[in-house]
């Protein structure tokens, strides 16, 4: 019994790593182009925007919240960053402008959730419409076509080898990792998400924690928005449509639970990679986009079902 339990635990803990490994094997068998530096570098680039968003989403879901306005805020902050860059040619200023705008949106989300007591789903759903509307008003429906060297955020390399978006993604990953494991705010997020009343009883300011979480996530969203516009090589007002869904998918596949209080940075990273690698394998194998969509949706359902199932098994074991 004891041996079985520990084996079960190990399998569950590393389930997603195993899935990723299996995908790598499948990919290598399915196409010779898969296991090449070029292709892997591509995949990492393709998932970097989604992963950065997913880390923010992870923090929020662990804390019992969600953010459906991520795509719109990413688009707005990315767009503003490009506008500022085109005017001033200062990358740092542009990034700060992006983060500033995103922080305002995050603060709005946080306040609506905390003080107006709206469920995060509804609050951020409304904000999504509001912010997207603002992007169109500000841009007048027109993309900014010539953004100059802003696109170096996407095409540049660190040490000549590692693409900048991948560096950014890994940096945000480490920040999330350290934040969740080692900092006070991390512990507070887990506590508030796990049981808000108990957290409040133990002296945590639940409202402040929630707002802080939205603010931190907004910084990530701004960076993702800048990465996206750099990749597109133009500021598009309709960019990042529906990106919150992929962020949720990566977080959830990575083991973040909607009930709150559970989730890890590394889980989300693996989750994001699984989604990205899967898409890549299907593309290389020539599978049509609509079929890919069906497969993606099914994987999300399967992943969450497994996750819930394994948690139920854990509970059963404890009860015995």
């Amino acid at each position, binding site marked *: 019994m004891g041996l079985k339990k520990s084996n079960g635990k190990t399998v569950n803990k590393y389930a997603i790593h195993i899935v990723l490994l299996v995908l790598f094997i499948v990919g290598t068998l399915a196409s010779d*182009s*898969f296991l090449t530096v070029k292709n892997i570098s*591509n995949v990492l680039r393709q998932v970097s925007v989604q992963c950065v968003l997913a880390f923010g989403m992870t923090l929020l879901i662990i804390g019992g919240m969600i953010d459906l306005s991520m795509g719109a805020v990413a688009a707005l902050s990315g767009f503003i960053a490009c506008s500022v860059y085109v005017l001033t040619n200062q990358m740092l200023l542009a990034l700060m402008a992006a983060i500033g705008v995103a922080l305002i949106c995050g603060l709005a989300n946080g306040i609506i959730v905390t003080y107006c007591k709206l469920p995060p789903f509804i609050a951020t759903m409304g904000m999504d419409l509001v912010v997207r509307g603002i992007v169109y008003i500000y841009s007048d*429906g*027109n993309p900014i*076509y010539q953004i100059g060297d802003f696109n170096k955020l996407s095409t540049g390399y660190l040490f000549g080898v590692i693409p900048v978006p991948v560096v950014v993604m890994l940096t945000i990953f480490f920040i999330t990792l350290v934040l969740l494991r080692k900092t006070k705010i991390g512990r507070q997020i887990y506590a508030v998400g796990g049981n808000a009343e108990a957290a409040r009883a133990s002296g945590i300011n639940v409202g402040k924690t929630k707002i802080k979480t939205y603010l931190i996530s907004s910084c990530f969203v701004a960076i993702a928005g800048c990465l996206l516009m750099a990749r*597109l*090589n133009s500021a598009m007002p309709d*960019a990042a449509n529906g990106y919150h869904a992929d962020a949720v998918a990566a977080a959830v596949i990575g083991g973040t639970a909607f009930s709150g209080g559970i989730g890890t940075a590394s889980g989300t990273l693996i989750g994001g990679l699984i989604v990205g690698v899967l898409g890549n394998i299907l593309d290389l194998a020539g599978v049509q986009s609509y079929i890919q969509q069906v497969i993606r949706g099914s994987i999300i359902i399967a992943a969450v079902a497994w996750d819930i199932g394994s948690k139920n098994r854990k509970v059963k074991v404890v009860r015995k």
Partner: protein
Amino acid sequence: MKRKIAWLMAVLMAGSLMAAGCSVAEQTPSSAAAESASAVQVEKEQVVAAQKTYRVAAIVKSQSEVWASWLSKSLQNRANDFADMEITLFDAQNDQTKTIQYIETAVTKKYDLIIVQKVVASDTNELFQSVVNKEGIPIIAVNIPVDDGVSYNIPAPNYDLGYTIGQVAAENLPEHAEILIMRGKVVDVEQQRYNGLKAALMDTRPDITILDEKVANYSREEGMKLMENWLQVYPDFDGLIALSDSMAIGGVEACKAVADFEFDKVQIYGVDGLADSCLAIQDGKMTATVLQDADIMAKEAIELGRKILTGEITERQDIMIETEVIDKRNVEQYIEKHKENGILE
């Protein structure tokens, strides 16, 4: 707090409903039900003759799609050329139900003319016929034509667009070229473009091999991702034909990211004639595109509308727009045009 917010929202909603109801009541004559079509028409003609301004409702497919946004801007610009035309834009946000809703709104608010760009080619005949015959409001359908017998059409020459770019590609692609094709959403409208392409290229140049053909939903993002993955499998392709510029540019961006990519060894084609593809052609990154001139379409729509409203034209007709190839030779003039329209700086 929650309850107070709920009450406040309920009051606001009720208030706005009442305000809307009041304005509708003001505009709708009390004896609307029994009036016959001809009586309405006579009354309208008298009112129109005495009136100084023609109110036009322009319902576009989606302000967030680059080409449709270009169309809506052009409609506004062209209407501004006439002091007696007042245009109001409605954005259907890619949702045909909103298109229908806005047509109904235009009827309620008694606009003089409706210019509509449908979202899909699904059947709207009954609605349009009712609006034209019973309400007496002429309809000009742009981009997607309708065959209800009463609406005027200024259709996008989808088959021609596909055919023209196919011709250019057929003339320029080397022997035994291997090409990739990016398609938009696979719906009726897009199928015509594809059929045109097939007739001009695949049927006339059987030596050409199609390596792969995939859907990228008219999106730059998807086009870019698709091209990145294609570059892994088909690094030595000879040509890319994308059935819209947005996807073509996505392809160009993906190629740009490849170190030492030789743009003069491949040919990249798009459709639409958007500003960024003109820049890419000027830059040597794209070979050619076919212009689907939103500005000309808007000009024709506004001028036709005016002639209908002043009674100069009474017979239903279609106006065909011509396509034009944009390549290295004439790209400069189109960049100038986009600058004039405020799309490029």
